[in-house]
Each structure stands twice: as C-alpha cells, then as structure tokens.
C-alpha cells in the first residue's frame, strides 16, 4: 500500500510540474504566424481538456483504490449497471468533442485557403536536400546541410545550430502571403518548420500546396519529417524571413550570383580548375550516397572508385549524371547542376581516388548536350 501512495505522490508531483515544464519551452512553439498561434491555442485547449478529464477519472479511480481496499475490510457492492449514468458519460464527451470540432474546423479551412498568394515558391525534396525555386523570378537553388561531417562524427565540437543549419536558407519576405508548392524528385519527404506551423509532404508525382505569412523577421529552423532514406536526419529546412526591401535586394543579388556561377561555360577549363570545382560539387551533392572516398554503399549505391565500366564509357557516365537511372536511386541532375558543375564533377569522378582515366569534360560540351536534349 505504501508503494501505491508513493506512486500517487509521484503522479501529483508531475502534474504539478507540468505548467513549469510548459513554461520552459518543452511545449509546441507558439510560432510567428497567425495560423501558428491558432494551432497552438487548439493544442492547449485540447491539452487542458485532457488534463481536466484525467484529474476527474484518475481522481475517482485512486479514491476508489484507496477507500475500498479489501485489506481494510471493504465489502463489495453488487451493482453492475446504471443506465442513466452510462448515457451521461457517453453524452458529455460527445458534447465536448463537438465543442472542440468547431474551432478546429475553422482553423483547418483557413489553412487550406492557399488563394491570392503574393509569392509562389516551388519546394522540391531530393535525397537529401531541398531545392527552392522562386516562380516567375528566375531564382532557384538547392539548400544543403551546413553542419560538417566532423561535427556529426564527434571529431569537432557541435555548434549551436547542429543539424539545423544549411548552406543557403530559403529567404522569404515578412507580411506577404507565400504559397509553397511542394513535390519530390525521388521518395516522399516532408517540409516542416515548427515556428511557421507548416508541415506538408513532398510527394513524387504530386504538387501539394500550403502557405505561410510570416509576421516577424528572423531565422526559423526545421527539418524533413518523413523518413526518406539514410540521411533523413540530415536535410534541415532553414527559413530566413526579412523585410520586403531587403528581400528585393536579395533577389537581385541572387540573380547576379547565379549568373556568375554559370559563367565560363564557353571558355576552356584546365584540369586543375575542373578538379577543384568538381571536388566541391561532389562533396555537396554526391558524397552522401557514393561516400567522400568514392567507395559507395553497394548494392544500392555503387562504388565510383575503381568502377571500370564507368571509366570505360565517358558518354554513359555523363548521361547517368545528367539523366539519372530510371527505377533506381540515382537522380537526374540536369536541372539541379549547371553545365560547369556537371563537367567538373564528372571530371573529378574520373580522376579521383585512384581513378586515373586522365580524361576531362569541358563545360561547353555539357552545355551543348543539355541544349540538344531540351530540343
């Protein structure tokens, strides 16, 4: 019996501590949009409804356990049904649920209203990065994990935003209604930022819609929520919300940067230049599957180091990178990488880790090929 008392005391203590815990940020974030606040308040209403029901039910239960103990000589009553009581405790929960369904329905309708957006962003999930395309603005880029492998393995100290940092965040203007159009190139991913209360699956063959109107400038972090393969834990989402003016400036800067990155398609690149650029691209895009040392992860991800069929057939190698492998995990990179990057990474793969083909591909050849293909 003493143990039962200990248990009850423990239960009461944890119930009493719950508000403290909630105050200390163990709870759902309130977020920075009108919708996220609505969702938070739905969450808290249903939470307190559960707490109240819990106190009543567990109170009655523990009272009975305490009061009607056999060891204290309690004699059992003989009643075993009571129609009106049973009707009441069926009806009351029903009424509570109807009361809960009303605000939930209103919020849901609001969430589904993606009309009249000021800005459209195409969000594409890829194993294991996000690609953002500002529709009508000619700006597109991929957003990769910014945390180093050394931090993950424990060789370096972990930073403040460990696993929740990217090389290039999604930049959005505050106060604007931004529509997100979500899809995927490979498996199902799910784009989630808790502070924005947006979570939406990105599914191959589908374009899902969601929207967000951020009220405060700031950096908001989240990550992929749907198991998408081995690096599911390593595809964060970072949204940087900025004032409209700053956003317009950023768009201009971004376009210039993209033009610079694609520059040099026409000139002749030296082997060293290609290898240097290729190593960067390989590390950002290819290494998560084929490994930094090209050893791969057979049988799903073949090794590239010492891959003789690949070294024997340059044309096949380029085609695989550009168009992917149908029915397998290798994606097509024709829309993700520019001609310089494709040329560099193919050259790198053919000449790194003991691969000594000695051949290289020029960006101009790739550009020609991409042009032919798109015709």
């Amino acid at each position, binding site marked *: *019996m003493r143990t039962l008392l200990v*248990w009850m005391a423990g239960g009461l203590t944890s119930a009493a501590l719950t508000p403290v815990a909630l105050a200390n940020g163990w*709870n*759902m974030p309130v977020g920075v949009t009108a919708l996220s606040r609505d*969702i938070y308040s*739905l969450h808290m209403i*249903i939470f307190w409804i*559960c707490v109240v029901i*819990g106190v009543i039910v*567990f109170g*009655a239960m523990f009272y*009975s356990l305490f009061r*009607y*103990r*056999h060891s204290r000589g309690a004699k*059992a*009553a003989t*009643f*075993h049904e009571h129609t009106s009581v*049973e009707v009441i*405790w*069926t009806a009351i*929960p029903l009424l509570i*649920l109807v009361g*809960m*369904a009303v605000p939930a*329905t209103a919020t*849901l309708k609001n*969430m589904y209203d993606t009309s009249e957006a000021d800005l459209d962003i195409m969000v594409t999930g890829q194993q294991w990065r996000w690609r953002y395309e500002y529709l009508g603005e000619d700006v597109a880029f991929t957003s990769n994990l910014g945390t180093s492998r050394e931090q*993950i393995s*424990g060789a370096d100290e972990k930073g*403040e*935003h*460990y*696993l*929740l940092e990217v090389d290039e965040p999604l930049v959005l203007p505050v106060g604007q209604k931004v529509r997100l159009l979500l899809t995927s190139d490979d*498996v199902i991913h*799910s784009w989630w930022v*808790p502070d924005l*209360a947006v*979570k*939406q*699956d990105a*599914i*191959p*063959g*589908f374009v*899902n819609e969601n929207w967000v109107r951020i009220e405060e400038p700031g950096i908001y*972090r989240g990550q992929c*929520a*749907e*198991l998408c*393969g*081995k690096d*599911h834990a390593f595809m964060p989402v970072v949204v940087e919300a900025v004032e409209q003016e700053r956003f317009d400036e950023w768009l201009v800067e971004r376009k210039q940067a993209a033009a610079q990155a694609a520059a040099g398609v026409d000139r002749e690149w030296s082997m060293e230049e290609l290898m240097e650029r290729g190593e960067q691209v390989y590390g950002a895009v290819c290494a998560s599957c084929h490994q930094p040392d090209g050893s791969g*992860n*057979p*049988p*799903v991800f073949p090794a590239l180091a010492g891959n003789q069929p690949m070294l024997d057939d340059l044309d096949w190698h380029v085609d695989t990178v550009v168009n992917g492998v149908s029915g*397998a995990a290798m994606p097509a990179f024709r829309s993700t990488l520019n001609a310089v990057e494709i040329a560099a990474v193919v050259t790198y793969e053919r000449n790194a880790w003991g691969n000594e083909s000695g051949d290289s591909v020029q960006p101009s050849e790739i550009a020609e090929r991409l042009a032919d293909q798109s015709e």
Partner: protein
Amino acid sequence: MASHLPPKPTPQHSTATAGGMAEAEHPRPSGLMRWLLTTNHKEIGSLYLIFSLTMFFIGGIFALVVRAELFQPGLQLVRPEFFNQMTTMHGLIMVFGAIMPAFVGLANWMVPLQIGAPDMALPRLNNFSFWLLPVAFTLLLSTLLMPGGGPNFGWTFYAPLSTTYAPPSTTFFILSLHIAGISSILGAINIIATILNLRAPGMRMMDMPLFVWTWLITAFLLIAVMPVLAGVITMMLMDINFGTSFFNAAGGGDPVLFQHLFWFFGHPEVYIMILPAFGIVSAIIPTFCRKRLFGYASMVYATAAIAILSFLVWAHHMFVVGLPLVAELFFMYTTMLIAVPTGVKVFNWVATMFRGSISFEPPMLFALAFVVQFTVGGFSGLMLAISPADFQYHDTYFVVAHFHYVLVPGALFAILAGAYYWLPKWTGHYPHLRLSQWHFWLSVIGVNLTFFPMHFAGLAGMPRRIPDYALQFADFNLASSLGAILFGASQLLFVLVIIKCVRGGEKAPARAWEGAEDLEWSVPSPAPLHTFETPPEFHPHQH
C-alpha cells in the same frame, strides 16, 4: 442459434495422435515431435506465448540499439543505414512477432477454457497457423544478413522508399509478411469457429467473458484487413520485380495510394493489438474488486463500435499528405468519435472499482497501470485527432510517445497482467510475489521514463526515425535511453518469474483468485491437457 448446439463431445481430434479417450492406448510423440505435431490448444498456446516472448526480446534488443545511438547527439555506434534497419525491424517484430502472437497465444489457452470447449474448433489448422510464424520471422530476420541489409523504410514501409529505393532483400520481407498474414487469417478463422460453435450449453453470446467477446471482434477485424495488407505488399512485389507502376509516379502510379491501402489495414491493425487487452483487463479488474464488471453490455457495444469506427479513420495517419479539405474534416470527426466508446470503457472500469473490495495482487497492479497509462495514450490520441494541430504533431516523437503509450504500457502491460493472472492456471503455482512486484514497479518506472519525455521532444520539434538530432533534444533523449535500459533489463525478471513458477512455488487451487468467476477457474490448476471433454454446466448469471 449456435449456442443451442452441443459442444463437440468427441475429442478425437484434440491431440496429435488420437485424442483424449484413446490417449492411454496411443503414446504421444515426445521431444521435438511432440511440439511440432501437437494439436492441443494448451500446448499451441504455450508455443505462441514462448515465441512471442522470444520475439519481444529480439525486438527489444533492436530498440536498445536505437536508444543507445540516441543516447547523445552525434553518430557514435551505428551508421544511419543500420539505424533505419533497427527502427524498421523493431516495429515489425514487435507488432507482428510479439504483441499479436501473444494475444493469439492467450486466446488459444483461454478461449476454450472460458467457453467450456474441449479444444479449438480446428486443431490441425491451429498447429499450422503457429508453425508458419517461426518460418516467417526467421526469413524476416535473415534479411539483416543479406547484401544491402534488411528493410530500412520503417514498419509502415511507404512507397516508393520501399519499392524503387529499397534494398534487394525487400522481396524476402514481402514473403515473410505474407506468411505471417496467412498465419493470422487462419488463427482468426479458428477463433471465430471456436467461439460460435463450441460454447458450453446454455452460454449465450451475451454470457461470454469479455476476453472472448473482444477476441471474436478482433478476429473479424483480422479477416477483414489482413487480405488488404496482402494486396498492398503484392503490389509492391509487382513494382519491384515485374515492372508495374502501382506506386511509381514516373510510371503513372500513385505513392499516396500506397498509404491509403496500408492504413486501411493499419488502423484496424492498431485495434487488433488493443481490443484483446481490453478483454483481459475486463476479466482482472472485477476479480480483484470482488465485484461484477460494471456495464457488461455497454462494454460489448463499445468494443463493436470501436471496431466499426476503425474502418473509417485510416486517413488520420495521412493528415499532411495533402488530402482534400472535406476528407480532412471527415477523418478528423470520425477519429474524435472514437474517444466516446473508448471513454465508456475506462469509465466502466473505474465504476467497477467504485465500492468494490479491492486487493493488489500482481495481475491487478498491471491491470491498474494499464488503465492509467492506456488513458494517457488515449489523451494524446485525442490531441492527434485535431487535424490542424496534427500538422505540428505528425511524424514527431509526440506520435512515438502516443503509440508506445497505447502499445507498451497499454497492450503489453495487459498481456503481462494476463500472464500473471493465468500463470497459476497454466503451471499450478502462483508466481513469486516479491519478484512479481519488483518486475511491476521497475517496469512502470522504466516505461514512463522511456516514453513520457518523448512527448516533450516531439512538441519541441524532434522528428521520428532520425539517428541524430539537434542539441535541444539531448536531455529528453538521455532520459528515454536510461528508461529503456531499465525497462529492458527488468523484463529479465519476468523470465525469472516464469521459470520459477513453472518449476514450483506456492500451489494454486482450481479457483486461484478469490473473486475469479469464469469457467477456466472450474478446472484444476494446472489445467490438465484435456479439459471439458464433457461440456460443463454453465449458469448464466455471472455477467
């Protein structure tokens, strides 16, 4: 109706060789062959329970690998590829290998005893249903050793991660699930045939103990949904090996279709794992309150209501896949409705305790912990039903906390309660009291330390199925991992209790518990190999 039929009086099909009366003339095979060929419901029940316990420990070791990797941030012990295989195998083994066979084992043992039947209606089929399971799970476990590793796409195996992007062993995974599914369907047929045909004369449907009722309803659920699972994994098989595109968007297929089919199976499956638990707890609480179960009829109707609703709620697992608004609303409302019959059950249990004469033997401790902890899982389920809020909860550790509360401190505790309750009937001895109490308290502490912090981790933003996490989740994960070690280790005490109980201990009379009333307590303890060879007298006032 069927209840007026006499139970099968001739038990010639109730043992491996000949059967009850002829047993003396025909020696039974001994050793391995005895177990391989047995058609006795008690022996097959024991086989199921031992199999389930073995799988429980294998699945538990996988869970501990997961918890060990999550002990602190960073990748320390396993690679993400292997981590994903561990989470997947843990789920598959626990759902299909531990919880479901445990309930089937309890049904094998107790349903004939509770309805006064000499055996299951289809004893040879019973043998076959059991022996399919070791085959299925040996095959499933062997995929871990195949090139590319075992299933790594979660126990929900969403396409196309489980088809186009899956390891080559997936075809074997599909085969093993087919075999386990056949086992479940055959088992369900057997249980339905037994309950409908072999009840003691005079026992009407509304006289049956609730464990029998909940299993009857569960068996219908199994027959309804296991073929859907078989269908969806066959479609996967076709996509992987025969070039179809059911779930491949590039070929015009539909990855969301997979989820509709899977959850049309999956949600009733969830209730398959909880309804028999309701039955066990509904037997134990009245016994140790020395008072009849409150609201027997409403318990039966609530169980049936939950079973019917279970076919109308599947898309609440898919609130963020981009369903149309109307579907979202429909599934939110139906899901909320489930709280009503579930609430009725909890209220009935509490009303049974009210003005009872309550004692706290080990089965009662587990049953009471079930009521509290299952209700906690029910509360988080109610929260998850609120579709707008689910956009924040979905695929986070909040969901992991929710379904583990329902399945571990819920269903598993009910199974443990049932084991403690019926061990005197099975072995003739009471389980060792002190050890049982230690097992209970360590399990309660361990299980809550493991799963309660997961609510906070999920709300704070931690997705499920990740091998590494951001630093703000570190404390929650540390607590969960410590709890998991405690919970896992304390289950070894359970094994010790069972071994001691089989070997000896305080002798139990036929009616091992003072307040126990069902028919199983009218046969000696331990129950002889053959019981109710002549139908018992049944007095239908007991409910």
